[in-house]
C-alpha cells in the first residue's frame, strides 16, 4: 500500500513535507503560495490601513472614523430659500447632492431644463429643439411613472386605463388640462343605473348609445333609449351632454367618436354582445375604478411640465 501511494506522487523528492506526522506515518506536503501572491496580499493589508483613514470606516464608541476626504455641495435652505455652500466629510449623500448640483455634469440637459422651466407651453411647443428634448426626457419619465398603467407607448388598456395616443381626451385636450390631471389626479365616476332603470330600459339605452357611433341602425328601441338618455328618466345628458359628446369638465366620455375607453365594443362581434357590454357598464357605473393618482408631491414641477407636453404630443398634436 505505502509503496503504491508513493509512486503516484512526484518521485523527485522536490516537494517537502510540513514536518509532522499523524498516526505514525500520515504526512502533509508543504506547497507554499507563490511569493508574488503573498506579497500582493501583504500589500492589500497595508493599503487597507490608508483606506480606513481616507473613507469613513471603523465604529469607535458611539461614533465612527469619518475619514479625511471631503465633499462640497450646495443646498437650498428651506427657511431662508438661500443657496448654501457646504463642505462635509466624504459620504455618499453629500456626493449625490454634489453630482445633482454640478452643472458640469450633463451641461446640455441642465441648460435645456432651465430653458423649459422658463418657457410657457406655447413657446415649448413651437420650439423644435425644446420639443426634441421633451420627447427624449419625457420618454424616460413616462416609462418610470406612467407606463405601468398607460403602457410603454401610451396605448392604455381598454376598460382600465385611457389610451393617450388617440387624441381623444376625457378631461380636455389642452396641455394645461393635462397638467391639471397630472397635478391633482383624476377619479372617473359614473353612477350605477342598475337600480334606476329596468332591464328593458337598459337595453334601449344601450341600443341608442350604439347608434351614436353607427354601431347600430335607428330603431324603435333606439328611439325609446334616446328618450331615456335625453329625458329625466335616465338623465344621461347631464354629464354626457345633449349631443352626447361629453363634458371635459366632468371627464364624461364622448359617445359619438367611436373611441371606446371602458366598454370594449370593437372587440365584440355581434350587436347583442356589443349591447351587453354597454348594458353591463351602464348598470354598474364607474366607481373608484378609474383612478389616476396625483403626482404633484411625487414629481418636480419641471418633470410635470415635461410630461404634460410629452403626453400631449403622444396624442398626435405638436
Amino acid at each position: 500500500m505505502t509503496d503504491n501511494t508513493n509512486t503516484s506522487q512526484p518521485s523527485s523528492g522536490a516537494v517537502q513535507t510540513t514536518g509532522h506526522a499523524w498516526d505514525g506515518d500520515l504526512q502533509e506536503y508543504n506547497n507554499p503560495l507563490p511569493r508574488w501572491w503573498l506579497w500582493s496580499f501583504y500589500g492589500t493589508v497595508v493599503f487597507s490601513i490608508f483606506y480606513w483613514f481616507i473613507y469613513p470606516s471603523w465604529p469607535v464608541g458611539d461614533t465612527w472614523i469619518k475619514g479625511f476626504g471631503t465633499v462640497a455641495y450646495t443646498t437650498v435652505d428651506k427657511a431662508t430659500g438661500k443657496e448654501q455652500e457646504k463642505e462635509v466629510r466624504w459620504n455618499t449623500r453629500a456626493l449625490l447632492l454634489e453630482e445633482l448640483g454640478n452643472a458640469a455634469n450633463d451641461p446640455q440637459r441642465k441648460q435645456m431644463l432651465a430653458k423649459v422651466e422658463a418657457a410657457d407651453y406655447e413657446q415649448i411647443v413651437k420650439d423644435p429643439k425644446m420639443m426634441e428634448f421633451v420627447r427624449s426626457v419625457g420618454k424616460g419619465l413616462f416609462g418610470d411613472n406612467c407606463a405601468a398603467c398607460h403602457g410603454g407607448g401610451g396605448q392604455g388598456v381598454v376598460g382600465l386605463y385611457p389610451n393617450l395616443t388617440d387624441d381623444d381626451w376625457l378631461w380636455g385636450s389642452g396641455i394645461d388640462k393635462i397638467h391639471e390631471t397630472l397635478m391633482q389626479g383624476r377619479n372617473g365616476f359614473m353612477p350605477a343605473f342598475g337600480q334606476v332603470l329596468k332591464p328593458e330600459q337598459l337595453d334601449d339605452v344601450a341600443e341608442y348609445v350604439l347608434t351614436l357611433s353607427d354601431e347600430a341602425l335607428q330603431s324603435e328601441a333606439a328611439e325609446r333609449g334616446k328618450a331615456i338618455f335625453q329625458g329625466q328618466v335616465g338623465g344621461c345628458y347631464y354629464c354626457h351632454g345633449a349631443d352626447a359628446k361629453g363634458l371635459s369638465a366632468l371627464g364624461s366620455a364622448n359617445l359619438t367618436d367611436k373611441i371606446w375607453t371602458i366598454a370594449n365594443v370593437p372587440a365584440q362581434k355581434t350587436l347583442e354582445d356589443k349591447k351587453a357590454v354597454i348594458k353591463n357598464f351602464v348598470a354598474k357605473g364607474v366607481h373608484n375604478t378609474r383612478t389616476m393618482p396625483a403626482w404633484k408631491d411625487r414629481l418636480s414641477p419641471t418633470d410635470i411640465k415635461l410630461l404634460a407636453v410629452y403626453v400631449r404630443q403622444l396624442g398626435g398634436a405638436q
Partner: protein
Amino acid sequence: MRHEHIETNSALMLVLILLVISIGGLVEIVPLFYINETLEKVDGVRPYTPLEIRGRDIYVREGCYLCHSQQIRPFRDEWLRYGHYSLAAESQYDHPFQWGSKRTGPDLARLGGKYSDQWHVQHLKAPRSVVPQSIMPNYPWLLDNDLDYKDVGSRMRALRITGVPYSVTQAEYDANVQKYGQAIADQLDISKAQDSLLQQAREKNFDGLPDRITEMEALIAYLQVLGTMVDFTQYDEGYFVEFR
C-alpha cells in the same frame, strides 16, 4: 503556541475559532447599538397599522423581497427613477427590514401612492394584463383568500418586544396620541387591533370588494404606505447629510 498543539486539541481550537470569527461581528455590529446619530430625526414615521402589518406578512410570505428591494441608494440614477433615497429612520419599525439585495423587479421603497388601488389589484392578479413585458408571477389567490386577522394582536405584541411602540397600557397609548395623533394611536392600540383592522379595510376598500376582506386588501394597504410617511418637502437636502 505551536500549530500542531492547536490542531491536536479540539477544545482549544473551538475556543480560538469562536474568537476569530466573532471579531467581525463585534467590530461591525456591536457599535451599531450605540450609534444613534445615524438615525435621522424626521417627523411622520410611524409603526404599521394592523391591516398594514398583515399586508407586510403576506409580502414576506409570498417572497416579494426575493425580486424587489426596498432601499433606494443615494445615486443619481436611482434618485431620478425612484425618488428620494431611503432613510434609516424609514425602516426603523421594520422587523425584519425588507431592504433586499436583488432587483429582478423594480425597487418598491417609494411605491405608496404611485399607482391606484385598482391598478394593484389588476397587476397582482395578472401582471401582464397591464405591463406586457413583465415577468412577475400571477398572484390570483390573494383575491380568493379571505384575510386571517384573528392573531393580528399577537403579531403586534411580538413586534412590541422588538421595540415597536404598539400600546398596551394607557400611558403608552397616551404617548402615541402625543406623537402620532389620536387616529393613528387608536390603530396602534393592541387591544383594539381587530376592530382597527376592520375599520381601515372597510373605509379604504383597497381590494375593490366592499363585502370581503381579502389578503389582497392587506397587501395593497401595505404597498400604498411604502415610502409615504416622511414629507420630504419639509426638509432641505443638507439636513439628511448631517446624519452621515
